């Protein structure tokens, strides 16, 4: 096993060294990432400076929701977010180099460009989570603790799966890569808000097609003992791992189909 993982360790290690080599650039990148996290949060803050409750959630609950969704998304973004660079590789023909190496292409792509600067946003969301937890009146049980620990992990898995789905579609779209952003970044955006403010079709879309509500909203309903709006009852909050599994099944099948569809430019 250790032997098999060794090439990836080397790849990731080299990426990390190269990114931290220029200290000042790295720090400014990191600050940029922190500020993106803060920008996203500013929206929640401004909304709640005008209202007390949004979609049955008060400010503390909304921060918890936002933090959970963002921990998941930012971790996924850190680990696999760069797979949406695929169109660049397709256009330049550099994907062919990956095909020549005796490692799975997806695994190479994921380990090729882990962007450490994205840690900034992870830190912002973890801090928000730590602040939000004691502010909420949660009736702790062992099951809820387990759910709380599991939620960021499943959320990261869901968003990572969405990134891979989006990247698989690029084999066909290439130039239209932004289509997929509607579902990856759009899903991430929608997941930070109580889904009860969405219309029913939209809520179903962001639950059963793009499983964004599984990443934070549904688990938060369980944590706070809220019933949940029509179409997305509270018990679904326990099903987040299933959602992650479903996304990854589609992602891997799609990726396989995409890679088979790909033909090099014949350089």
């Amino acid at each position, binding site marked *: 096993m250790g032997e098999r993982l060794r090439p990836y360790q080397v790849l990731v290690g080299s990426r990390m060294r190269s990114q931290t080599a220029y200290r000042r*650039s790295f*720090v400014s990148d990191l600050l940029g990432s922190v500020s993106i996290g*803060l920008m996203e949060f500013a*929206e929640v803050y401004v*909304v709640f400076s*005008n*209202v007390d409750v949004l979609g049955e959630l008060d400010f503390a609950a909304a921060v918890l929701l936002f933090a959970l969704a963002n921990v998941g998304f930012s971790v996924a973004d850190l680990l696999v977010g760069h797979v949406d660079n695929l169109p660049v590789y397709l256009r330049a023909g550099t994907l062919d180099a990956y095909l020549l190496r005796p490692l799975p292409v997806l695994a190479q792509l994921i380990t090729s460009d882990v962007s450490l600067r994205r840690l900034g946003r992870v830190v912002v969301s973890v801090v928000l989570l730590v602040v939000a937890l004691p502010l909420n009146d949660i009736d702790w049980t062992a099951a809820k603790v387990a759910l709380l620990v599991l939620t960021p992990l499943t959320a990261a898995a869901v968003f990572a799966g969405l990134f891979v789905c989006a990247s698989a579609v690029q084999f066909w779209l290439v130039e239209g*890569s932004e289509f997929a952003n*509607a579902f990856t970044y759009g899903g991430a955006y929608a997941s930070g808000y109580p889904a009860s403010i969405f219309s029913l079709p*939209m809520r179903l879309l962001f639950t059963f097609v793009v499983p964004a509500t599984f990443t934070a909203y549904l688990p938060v309903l369980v944590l706070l003992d809220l019933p949940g709006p029509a179409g997305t009852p509270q018990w679904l909050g326990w099903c987040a791992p299933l959602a992650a599994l479903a996304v990854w099944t589609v992602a891997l099948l799609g990726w396989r189909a995409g890679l088979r569809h790909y033909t090099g430019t014949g350089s």
Partner: protein
Amino acid sequence: MRLFATLVILGFRRWSTYRLATAAGAFTNTVFGLIKASITVGAIGAAGGTLAGYDALTGATYAWIVQALIAPVNVFNWNELALRIRDGDIAIDLARPLDPQFAYLAGFLGRAAHQFIPRGAPPLLAGALITGLALPSTPLPYLLGLVSITLGISVSFATWWLVNLAAFWLIELRGVLTLNVVAMGILSGLVIPVHWFPDWLATIAGLTPYPSMLQAPADVVMARAEGTAALGILAVQAAWLTGVLLLGRLVFARGARKLVVQGG
């Protein structure tokens, strides 16, 4: 002036090549519009029906109009100049018998003109179908709106120009460009109308050119500001445009003096 028009047309033609990318962008703008309109309407409902002068319909309209303007105003990225400074191509721009800032502004406006309908119409159409739009029924707000949008696009250009100039002094610009996107994201009214800001944030926004990029055109087009109030907004936009463009010229001149081109 003829030269400027030619450059605008060239900018338009350059961008008209990327049709699929334009369609994809419009689709994404529309999906985000749907989410934003839901959040805006949800917040207005939670506030009891009106919030800082917006009711559910005008709130949704605001969200859709902003989505329609994102591409022309170019909120998310413009690093053309920075890349040319970094690889030395800027020397070619300096050798041309026309002012670089003027030429790039023309290209930026040409791009915006191309994006205006294909990237703007889909979100507005979706808005009209899904939430309905509250648009004025007289022609004046649209005429003033067109001026305001052009000013907004130009202010965006002036700001991006200034930020890109940091490339004369820094090697890696991503962090700096990101900070501009973030400032624009919060302070321009992109995610939330500036009118909803708590006082301290509204004060900060007022001290920057960002509200002139999106909030101002949206206010004028939606006739939230009419008559002299609308003219006042245009004047503020024009003032920011002049100020930031002039500052950009100053910084560019200093940067150009420092410029060393490899192999030149």
